[in-house]
């Protein structure tokens, strides 16, 4: 059969379907909604998981994070009015990690200091991170004004501070703040730059710079503020000694992440038996998120697949009725000399046209629905090309699979019997 003949047969099929417009449309609906739901559901799923994946990727997939955690047994046990709690990462840990493991590329220690901050007329408690210049390579953010901390600041032990966008907003700072003096406690720091920060709200994945107001060099933080902090909670004063709050470790390659995580786990078990340090591996989270996404896609795909199946059964039902209704036509065509396979192809073309058309309309709907969801609910949705291709392919496939039986039944009719049928 040439392409030209096929085109003519398709035209004829469309013409036959147009004879019963309402019936054809109703028959198509099953496939329309099936395809639309496949595309829309996959778009919602893809949107949600891509959102999670970008957040995790922002942590750096080659990075490992160590955080100091106050151990459970140290809480609420003190009888003394003023107690000293010692826990968390040590300066020695940082050195040990840097010197022990071959898979380690860079290590960035971070110390969190909470101090009363003052900029111009404004004064509030700030969360300040003391760290090394490498921080800005491992947690890369666009610089909005000025510069970030550099090796020179470290060398000269200069009292400089970099505000985050979040901190700048709280302090009502703007780009002209660069050069001004920020007071932390009773120490003066020169603001040298402002960098963007992650909003990070409403996400399961915390980024290291979440709710951080400013960065200062680690050595300065240690020299000016020391390692102890006083906390007032529920009327009791509590003193905490924490050397480092966080260590970010960059592995040389993604392949090194997992062995390194294992080695670090072993090291922590030995040096921190109190479990006052938590290791988190963004790559593991990423793997987990991807696995979740796969499960999600399978579930959504099955639901959508079932709706397509139902659509296909609807088509088959109508085509079987159509075959019965057109028994005489089949007899006439056979008497004239149509072969069985020509009857098969006639009916098959009709079903495939019907289901493919349903697939096209469904694709339109499937593109519109995620756009609406994003506009109305603010949920991220991503329509992937493969989901559209898959749906269209499946809808045409549904036509073939569910059209085959009615078509075969039409072709099996005995022409003599078919001609006598009224």
């Amino acid at each position, binding site marked *: 059969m040439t392409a030209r003949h096929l085109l003519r047969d398709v035209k004829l099929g469309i013409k036959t379907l147009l004879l019963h417009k309402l019936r054809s449309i109703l028959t198509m609906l099953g496939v329309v909604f099936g395809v639309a739901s496949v595309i829309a559901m996959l778009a919602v799923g893809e949107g949600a998981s891509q959102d999670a994946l970008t957040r995790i990727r922002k942590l750096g997939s080659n990075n490992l994070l160590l955080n100091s955690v106050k151990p459970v047994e140290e809480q609420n046990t003190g009888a003394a009015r003023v107690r000293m709690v010692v826990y968390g990462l040590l300066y020695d840990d940082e050195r040990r990690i840097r010197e022990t493991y071959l898979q380690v590329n860079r290590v960035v220690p971070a110390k969190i200091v909470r101090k009363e901050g003052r900029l111009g007329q404004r004064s509030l408690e700030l969360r300040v991170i003391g760290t090394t210049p490498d921080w800005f390579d491992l947690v890369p953010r666009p610089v909005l004004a000025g510069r970030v901390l550099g090796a020179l600041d470290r060398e000269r032990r200069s009292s400089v501070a970099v505000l985050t966008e979040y901190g700048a907003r709280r302090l009502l700072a703007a780009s002209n703040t660069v050069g001004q003096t920020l007071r932390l406690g009773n120490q003066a720091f020169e603001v040298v730059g402002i960098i963007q920060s992650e909003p990070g709200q409403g996400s399961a994945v915390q980024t290291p710079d979440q709710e951080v107001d400013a960065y200062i060099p680690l050595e300065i933080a240690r020299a000016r503020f020391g390692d102890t902090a006083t906390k007032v909670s529920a009327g009791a004063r509590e003193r905490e000694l924490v050397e480092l709050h966080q260590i970010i470790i960059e592995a040389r390659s993604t392949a090194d992440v997992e062995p390194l995580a294992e080695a670090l786990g072993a090291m922590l078990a030995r040096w921190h038996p109190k479990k006052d340090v938590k290791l988190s591996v963004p790559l593991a989270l990423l793997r987990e998120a991807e696995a979740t996404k796969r499960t999600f896609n399978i579930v959504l795909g099955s639901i959508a697949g079932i709706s397509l199946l139902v659509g296909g059964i609807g088509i088959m039902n109508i085509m079987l009725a159509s075959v019965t209704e057109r028994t005489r*036509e089949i007899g*006439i*065509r056979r008497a*004239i*000399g*149509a*072969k069985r396979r020509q009857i098969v192809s006639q009916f098959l073309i009709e079903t495939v046209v019907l289901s493919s058309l349903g697939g096209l309309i469904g694709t339109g709907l499937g593109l519109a629905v995620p756009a609406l969801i994003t506009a109305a609910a603010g949920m991220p949705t991503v329509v992937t090309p493969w989901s559209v291709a898959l749906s269209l392919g499946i809808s045409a496939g549904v036509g073939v699979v569910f059209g085959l039986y009615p078509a075969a039944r039409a072709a099996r009719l005995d022409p*003599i019997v078919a001609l006598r049928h009224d």
Partner: protein
Amino acid sequence: MIGSRAVIELEDVRKTYRMGSQDVQALAGVSVSFLEGSFWAIMGPSGSGKSTMLNLLGCLDRPTTGTYRLQGHDVARLGDDALSEMRLRHLGFVFQSFHLIAQLTVQENIELPLYYLGWEPHAAAERARELAGRVGLADRLGHRPAELSGGQQQRVAIARALANDPGILMADEPTGNLDSATGVQIMDLLGELNEQGKTIVMVTHESDIAARASCQLHMRDGRIERMVEGRG
């Protein structure tokens, strides 16, 4: 203008149907040959086997035993596809209830055999117009069968039967659903086609219609009761 070449040859053809647990012999040994250009009327009471005869002659069915040669081809043992091919190439059908396809126009109905012959659409359209003119329906090409009178519908059916230029026309009670005046017109048309060289095999139970054919074949109980071969 009856030629000397036999276009249909039956030799001891038998057809047995199984009805429940009983075998019914619809044809009990029929041997006959029809010459090219002849006009046969097959007659007989109902149950005499004349419909079975027409189905076999029209390649819609196969004999249980015996041989059937159509235009020199042995068709008694052909498969379904090959039988379809024989119908498509050598036969044209005219039925009692016209059997036009309701959703197709007059033109599309006439084009139908050409569609299965794989003709190019414009050539098929050209031929359909020519045939419609020949049966006097050139101005009805765009109409649907339901918009035509019975006589007109039968003319369309005849035009369709002629589309593939068959050697033989099979007519099954072609005037059965028509009033006598229209019936006469249809018989005139068939007579004309016979004069132009078509072999016609017609089943009828009306003797005045049968009288229009040059040869009559009377059947009873699956056998040929008598034959009247007319002028040549």
